[in-house]
C-alpha cells in the first residue's frame, strides 16, 4: 500500500509573501524576507536578523474581519493560511465530510503571554489573552474561523518538526479511513521567548543565514503559517478534484542523542529518511530534489549533510535549503517547505540555496545555488527539532 494522499489546496503566509503565489514569485526572483527585527522590541535588535511577516496584528485582524486585540499572532497567521488553502481546494461546506484540523506550533500565544505577563495582575484590559498560551487555543481559534465544529481538531508540538508531523498524522488518518478530509500544517509567530531562547543556545546568526557553507554562523528565526488540504481518493474522484501533488512518504524517528543537538552522524535523520522512502515504496534514486532542513547552524548542517550522504550513498540529488528566504519558521518550517515542495513539482523548478560560498571541509556537498529548471516528480523534505525529533516527508507528482 504505497498509494499517496492527495493534496488539493495550499495556503501560506511568510516573510516572503502573504499567499502562495507571492511566496513563489519571491522564490523565483530571489527576493528574501530576512531583515532587522522591527515588530518586536528587543535588546538584541542589532545582533540578530529575522524573517518577519510584514503585516501587523492589527492589519491581519482587519483583513480577517476580527475584533482588534482579539487574537495572538499565531492563530492570526494560521487563519490566513488555512482560509487560502480551503479556497484553493474549493471547499465551501466544511461540514460536508468527516474533516479534521491538525496544526503544529511551538509558541502558541506566547507573544501575548510575555507581553501581558505582569499586566494581567494590574488590570483586566488584556485578560482575553490569559488562556491563549495554550497551543491548542491557537488551533481552536483557527477551527472557529473556518467554521469547523464537532470534529477531530488537535495540535502537535515537536519543536521544529511539528508541521511535518501534523502532515504525517493527517496522511495516516486519511489512509486508514479515520477522516475523509484534513487540514494540516502549522503556525508560529516570533516572540521574545524564542528569540532569547535561541540566543542562549548561541545559534543565532548576526547576518544572513548561509546553509551548508563552511563559514555558517547560525540561523535566522522566522514566522509563518502554512496549511495543506489532504483529501481521500473517494472525494477526489467523486468531486473530480484537481490534485496538486501527493503526500507519498513520511517518517519520524528520534535521534536519542541530545535534547537540542543532532548526532554527529545524523542517525535520527537517516532513520526518518529511510522510513519515508519505505512508506513511499521508492528507492533514493527516484528523488529529484531535496528541500533540506538546512538551518545554517554548525551542528544541523553537518549532521544533515552526513545523513544525506549515508541515505543517498554518495549520489545526493540536487538539494537546497530555502531558509535564507524565510528564516527558520520553527514549528511551521516543514509546512512552508511542503508548499515549496509542491510548487517545485508543479513548476519543475529547484530553488537556489542563497548565500552559499564555501563547501564544508567535512564533506564534498554543494547545494544548488542558482534557480534550476528540471523535471521534478519527487521531492524529499527534511525537518529536525529539539528533543531529537527527526521527520521526513516525500511529495510526488503521481499517486
Amino acid at each position, binding site marked *: 500500500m504505497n498509494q499517496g494522499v492527495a493534496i488539493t489546496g495550499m495556503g501560506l503566509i511568510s516573510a516572503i509573501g502573504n499567499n502562495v503565489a507571492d511566496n513563489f514569485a519571491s522564490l523565483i526572483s530571489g527576493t528574501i524576507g530576512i531583515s532587522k527585527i522591527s515588530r518586536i522590541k*528587543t*535588546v*538584541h535588535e542589532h545582533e540578530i536578523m529575522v524573517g518577519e511577516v510584514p503585516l501587523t496584528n492589527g492589519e491581519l485582524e482587519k483583513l480577517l474581519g476580527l475584533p482588534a486585540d482579539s487574537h495572538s499572532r499565531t492563530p492570526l497567521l494560521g487563519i490566513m493560511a488555512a482560509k487560502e488553502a480551503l479556497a484553493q481546494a474549493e471547499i465551501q461546506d466544511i461540514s460536508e465530510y468527516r474533516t479534521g484540523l491538525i496544526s503544529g*506550533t*511551538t509558541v*502558541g500565544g*506566547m507573544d501575548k*503571554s*510575555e507581553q501581558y*505577563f505582569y499586566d*494581567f*495582575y494590574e488590570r483586566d484590559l488584556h*485578560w482575553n489573552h*490569559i*488562556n491563549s*498560551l*495554550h*497551543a*491548542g*487555543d491557537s*488551533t*481552536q481559534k483557527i*477551527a472557529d474561523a473556518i467554521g469547523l*465544529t*464537532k*470534529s*477531530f*481538531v*488537535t*495540535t*502537535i*508540538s*515537536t*519543536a521544529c518538526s511539528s508541521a511535518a508531523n501534523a502532515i504525517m*498524522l493527517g496522511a*495516516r488518518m486519511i489512509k*486508514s479511513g*479515520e477522516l475523509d478530509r484534513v487540514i494540516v500544517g502549522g503556525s508560529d509567530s516570533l516572540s521574545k*521567548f524564542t528569540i*532569547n*531562547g535561541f*540566543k*542562549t*543556545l548561541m545559534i543565532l546568526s548576526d547576518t544572513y543565514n548561509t546553509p551548508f557553507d563552511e563559514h555558517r554562523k547560525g540561523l535566522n528565526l522566522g514566522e509563518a503559517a502554512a496549511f495543506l488540504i489532504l483529501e481521500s481518493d473517494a472525494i477526489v474522484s467523486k468531486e473530480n478534484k484537481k490534485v496538486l501533488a501527493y503526500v507519498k512518504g513520511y517518517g*519520524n*524517528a*528520534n535521534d*536519542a*542523542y*541530545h*535534547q*537540542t543537538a543532532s548526532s554527529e552522524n545524523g*542517525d*535520527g535523520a537517516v*532513520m526518518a529518511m529511510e522510513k519515508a522512502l519505505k512508506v513511499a515504496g521508492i528507492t533514493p534514486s527516484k528523488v529529484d530534489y531535496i528541500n533540506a532542513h538546512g538551518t545554517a547552524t554548525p551542528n544541523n548542517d553537518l549532521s544533515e549533510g552526513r545523513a544525506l550522504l549515508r541515505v543517498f550513498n554518495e549520489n545526493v540529488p540536487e538539494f537546497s535549503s530555502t531558509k535564507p528566504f524565510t528564516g527558520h519558521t520553527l514549528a511551521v518550517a516543514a509546512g512552508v517547505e511542503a508548499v515549496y515542495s509542491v510548487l517545485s513539482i508543479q513548476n519543475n523548478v529547484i530553488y537556489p540555496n542563497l548565500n552559499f560560498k564555501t563547501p564544508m571541509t567535512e564533506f564534498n556537498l554543494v547545494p544548488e545555488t542558482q534557480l534550476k529548471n528540471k523535471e521534478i516528480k519527487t521531492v524529499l523534505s527534511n525537518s529536525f*527539532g*529539539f*528533543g*531529537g*525529533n527527526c521527520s521526513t516527508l516525500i511529495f510526488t507528482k503521481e499517486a
Partner: protein
Amino acid sequence: MKLEVYINSIGSVSVQKTFDDSGFLDEVVDYEGTSVKAVDPTYRDYIPPAAARRMAKGLKMSAVSSHNALKEAGLDNVDAIIVGTGLGCLGESEKFVRDLLDNDEQYLTPTRFIQSSHNTVAGSIALDMGCKGYNFTYVHSNISFESSLWDAKLQLENNEAENILVGAVDELVEHHVTTHQFIDHIKKEPVSREQVLRSGTKGIVFGEGSHFFVLSNQKQDTTYSRLIAMGIYNTLKKEEVSDTILVFLHTNGLTLEDLDGVILGINGDVDFDTIYQDLANGIFQTIPQFVYKHLSGEYDTASGFGFWMANKIFKTGKVPEVIRWNDIKVSQPKRLLLYNQYRGKNHSLVVLEKC
C-alpha cells in the same frame, strides 16, 4: 484486518498516592485549596539527585510514571513514545519569561528554555532509554492525552508498532493558577476534596500529574484492558452531546446496555458540569457513574487519571466508594466509557473493555 489494542501496564504520579501500585485509592489524600500538588514519590529511587535538581516537575513525575509502566510491561524499550501535555513543563517557561522580563533579556541560561519545549518529556524519555522510534507530543488542551491514545491505536491496529509508551503530563504553576483565577477558570475560594464536585462555584481546583501506559497489540499476563473505541470532538453544542454519544456507540457496534459504567470528568465548575449532569440524569441514568477529578484535581491531562482509574477497576474488580457518583452498584465491571470535556470544549469518548 485490524489488530486489537491492549493496555499492558500503568504508571502514575498524581495528587493521590498512585505511584504506589499495591493499593487502589485505599487511603485518600484530602486537601482544601484552589490548587493541589502531586504527592511526591521518592524521586531519588528513580533519578540521580544531581540530575533531579535541574529537572522540571513534569520531567521528574514522568521519569517515575514511565519507568513504572515500562517495568510492569517487562520492557526495556518500545517502538514509539507518544505524550500528551496541555502546557508542557510550564514552570520552566514561566521562569524563563520572568527572567527575561526582569533582567531586560540579559543573563539568561538555556536550560529553562530547553525544558520549555513541549516535547521535552517525550524527548528525554527517548534519550534515557535510547529509543530511536516514533516520538510525538500532542498539546491540545484536554484532548492532548486522547490524541496520543488515538495515534497509538492507529499504529497498533495497523501493526506499525508493537509496543507504544503513551503518556499524559502537566504540572502546577503559580502564575498560571493566579491568572486563571482572575478569569474564573480556577476557583477563587478554597474548597475541600469532599466538597469540590458539589461546590456550586465557578472554576475548578487545579492539579497536576503524570500518567504513562504501555499500549500493545500483543496481550500478555499483565494486560489490563482492551481499547475498543475512541471519539474526539472539538466543539459540541450542549444539546448535541447525548446524540453524539449515542451515534458514537452505535458506530462502534455498542449500545448503552453494553456499558457497565461511565467515568465522567465532572470537575466542580458550576458553569460546565451541567453538561455532565444532563447525561447523568439522561442517557446515563441507569448506568453506574464514577468520578475522579475530586481526587486528581483538574488539568489538561487529568483524563490520564481517569484512564488509570478505569484500568485499576478492571484489574482489581473493585469500585472504591470515593469514586461513586450515583447509587447504582456494580461489581466486576467489564466495559467502561470515559467521557470528558473542559469548559464545553474538546469532548472525548474512550471505551475500554476488561481483558
